[in-house]
């Protein structure tokens, strides 16, 4: 316990204060003082009442044979003051809270729009230009996606969900908002000018993300509305970067062409939230594990038997309900439109690599494909945009590939 206390102190030092955590957005400066105003008013009344109670309790304890002194059973002045004074203090709470709140609701016009999708049990953020995050970090035993927020402009999150209600909660930014299916809600923040990370590099060499203050790893994103099994693992890491780094970040996330298929598949496994239900270590979870299934033949609920190959993986991603393994119930929704063909292929190759018998084959395929990509890029006439470079043999608009 003692070590834990000291750990608590050292690890959180700059992150936590006693009540609120380190503040990372402009809202903290308005919201924290309101809280402390209420806190001190409450503390005053609490201490006053408890002191009186204890004092009376001691002084007026019953003494055998002694009659109590009679005293008035009401007093207009007292009663009025303990009705009116709290009322006034509470009116201030309301008004101040109302003003602070209205400020958090109306997004400034120059805000950068980021689309957020909540899904059991992960978040996807879509940056301008349709770029989504691929980076991830391991927090509390799960790989959660990493998102960047710029310091040079406000950000407006426009959010929706594909299944049940979630809630987008960034404690360090002092804000949250529920995310509904079939409806858009929004939330905006302006990060304080205190970047936690910087992103350096360029498109050819690739980008790296560097932590600026060794104690500050960035901030938490939580899901705050109960949404089922892995509600508590539906998190994320928010890093704050300056303007140029933010542009680099978007570039970094958009460009996957220099990542080989196996590595990319693994990245997507966590970035797209597959890890919420599919393990890669053989453990049974909400969905079947990915370990060792490539090339195997499985039995399905409709009685069919299918061999796990590229076609089957593709179908499972785009049309999860088509074939459901016995022993599982389908909890997955279609990813059509949210993964492109190269990404599907990378996931399949990654799954291939998870079967010891096929690992070498998968590596070889991944290397060959990466070489192909390189060649394409170097050839000046190549049309591919980063992220959807159109693998030979698949349609360029693979993301919306026709069903069947």
């Amino acid at each position, binding site marked *: 316990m003692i070590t834990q206390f000291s750990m608590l102190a050292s690890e959180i030092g700059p992150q936590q204060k*006693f009540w609120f955590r380190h503040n990372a957005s402009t809202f903290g400066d308005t919201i924290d003082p309101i809280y402390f105003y209420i806190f001190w008013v409450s503390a005053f009344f609490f201490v006053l*009442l408890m002191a009186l109670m204890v004092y009376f309790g001691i002084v007026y304890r019953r003494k055998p044979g002694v009659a109590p002194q009679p005293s008035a059973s009401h007093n207009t002045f007292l*009663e009025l003051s303990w009705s009116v004074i709290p009322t006034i203090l509470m009116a201030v709470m309301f008004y101040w809270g109302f003003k602070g709140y*209205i400020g958090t609701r109306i997004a400034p016009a120059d805000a950068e729009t980021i689309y957020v999708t909540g899904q059991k049990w992960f978040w996807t953020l879509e940056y301008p230009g349709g770029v989504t995050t691929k980076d991830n970090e391991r927090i509390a035993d799960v790989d959660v996606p990493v998102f960047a927020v710029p310091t040079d402009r406000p950000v407006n999150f426009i959010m929706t969900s594909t299944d*049940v209600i979630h809630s987008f909660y960034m404690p360090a930014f002092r804000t949250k908002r529920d995310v509904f299916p079939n409806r858009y809600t929004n939330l905006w923040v302006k990060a304080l000018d205190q970047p936690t990370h910087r992103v350096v590099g360029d498109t050819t060499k690739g980008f790296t993300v560097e932590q600026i203050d060794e104690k500050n790893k960035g901030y938490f994103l939580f899901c*705050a509305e109960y949404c089922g099994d892995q509600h*508590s693992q539906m998190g994320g890491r928010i890093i704050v970067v300056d303007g140029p780094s933010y542009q680099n970040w978007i570039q970094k996330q958009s460009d996957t062409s220099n990542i080989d298929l196996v590595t990319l598949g693994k990245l997507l496994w966590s970035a797209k939230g597959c890890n919420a239900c599919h393990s890669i270590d053989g453990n049974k979870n909400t969905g079947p594990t990915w370990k060792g299934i490539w090339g195997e033949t499985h039995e399905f609920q409709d009685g069919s038997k299918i061999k796990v190959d590229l076609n089957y993986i593709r179908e499972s991603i785009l049309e999860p309900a088509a074939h459901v393994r016995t022993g599982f119930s389908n909890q997955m929704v279609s990813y059509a439109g949210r993964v492109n063909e190269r990404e599907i292929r990378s996931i399949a190759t990654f799954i291939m690599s998870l079967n010891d018998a096929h690992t070498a084959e998968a590596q070889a395929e991944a290397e060959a494909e990466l070489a192909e990509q390189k060649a394409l890029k170097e050839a000046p006439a190549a049309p591919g945009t980063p992220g959807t470079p159109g693998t030979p043999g698949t349609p360029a608009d693979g993301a919306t590939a026709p069903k069947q």
Partner: protein
Amino acid sequence: MSAGHHDVSYLAPKETLFKTVWSWVYTIDHKKIGVMYLCAVLAMFFLGGVFALLLRMELWEPTKTTVEGVTGTFLPTVNTADGQQITVNNMYNRMFSLHGTIMVFLFIIPSIPAALGNIFLPIMLGAKDVAFPRLNLMSWYTYVFGGVFALYSLIAGGVETGWTFYTPYSTTTNWGNVTSMVLAAFILGFSSIFTGMNFIVTVHKLRVPGMGWFDMPLFVWAVYATAIIQVLATPVLGITLLMVVFERLFHIGIFDPALGGDPVLFQHFFWFYSHPAVYIMILPGFGIISEILAVHCRKRLFGYRAIAFSSIAIAAISFLVWGHHMFTSETAVANVVFSALTFLVAIPTAIKVFNWVATMYKSSISWTTPMLYAAAFLFCFTIGGLTGPPLATLATDIHLHDTYFVVAHFHYVMMGGTVLAFVGGLHHWWPKFTGRMYNENWARLGCILVFIGFNVTFFTQFFMGTLGMPRRYATYVDEFTTWHQVSTVGSWILGIGFLIHLMVFLQSLVAGRKAGANPWGGLTFEWEAASPPIEHNFSHEPVMTHGPYDYDTALPPHCDPKDFPLPDPALVRRVHGAH
């Protein structure tokens, strides 16, 4: 009900065992029904409490993985018959959902009104029974019926929707047995409505002749205000839950966004009941505290009318504030209105707290267990109440909503408020309805352990909440570990405290000293009846000779003036004026 039995204690056994059992099963005596309710709600409290202890154990560690990669912490991973796996998370989710539903629907809502209220409300009015004794029995069996549904649901897979049953999660999840749990809550609602109707009519029509509205004990006022909320709010919950059941069975789509329905509408309906319901939970507790303070301080309550009116005011305003549970899902305009109204409801509560403390001034305080509980209540409930305003304030609630701050708030009001008042009231009236005294010193020890354990368990959660720890989390980020562990240790102290109380009660039933008719020197009618009361409560209809709290002028019934000396009448006249 032959005449011969009239002067016998209501607990006295009949000639044969069968007749005795029958005299309980088919009783229309409000005291027996109350006692049966009492046993049931205590059992439910312990069941809910066991779930609480289990879920606190699970939170001992931040993630699923313990030492060296061994998976699975306290709660096991289970395979169900059809090969589905219940993960650790899922087990945890069941724990808090069952804990919440049991505590709310099966324990706290019926706790004080249906158990202690049933036993004492008619006696305090000088009546022989409630207005509709058969309806009362029906309410009890409706409760049993609902309880059976809930227990069936528990055995048949439990629920993991949280006690709030938010759609579309609750209508689409195929884990557990949500339908029967929702039906259980629906049925329990009827039980609550029946009790409420009965009490309202009883208060209107069965007061002893000469007892005006302002001669009623404050417990009666509080239960009356509660009953109004029960009758007016519960039907809306009923219809909402019914729609959830239809949604699950027939996919009617009213609350399902996938079919064009509106999940926020469900939240409005749910909180339209469940906010007033939190005052269903606390108002009877307020009533008990008023009784305990008056009797154990030997003091006329300060501001009787203010306390009585504030109960009614709370009941009325409680219908207008439900939106404060939805600040992160509703539009800005609605939020502003609801925030403002929420502060209004805090004012009558504040008035009560000040009045209670003022009552202790120049009184004669006997630190019995009930009085200790009243003080513990004042401590904990004030904290719980004072953490309401940061949640009602828009700017701060956006941060605090659905964090452990809310969890701490509502345990401070429900556990630190209602439960402490309930246990205090139980000790206060224990001699009356069982006819036996309990062991004062052990009970005091229990009270102190509960008080310490409670604060250790839940005060830590305020810190976690402001730091951003969301609720309903089976796993959490490392930095909260210490807080969670302190909280878990607190829950053990709490458990030991309740265990001691349990022992004290059992000991008292088996070997407790016989209680006199008026061990504390109370002035309200229940202390005029025998301990335990006879079947029709009083051998002669009691007469109003003094107000319920005239401790300065009236000698308590069955009491020796030496034990309860009265102040000098001249002094009394000077303070209160001619009586």
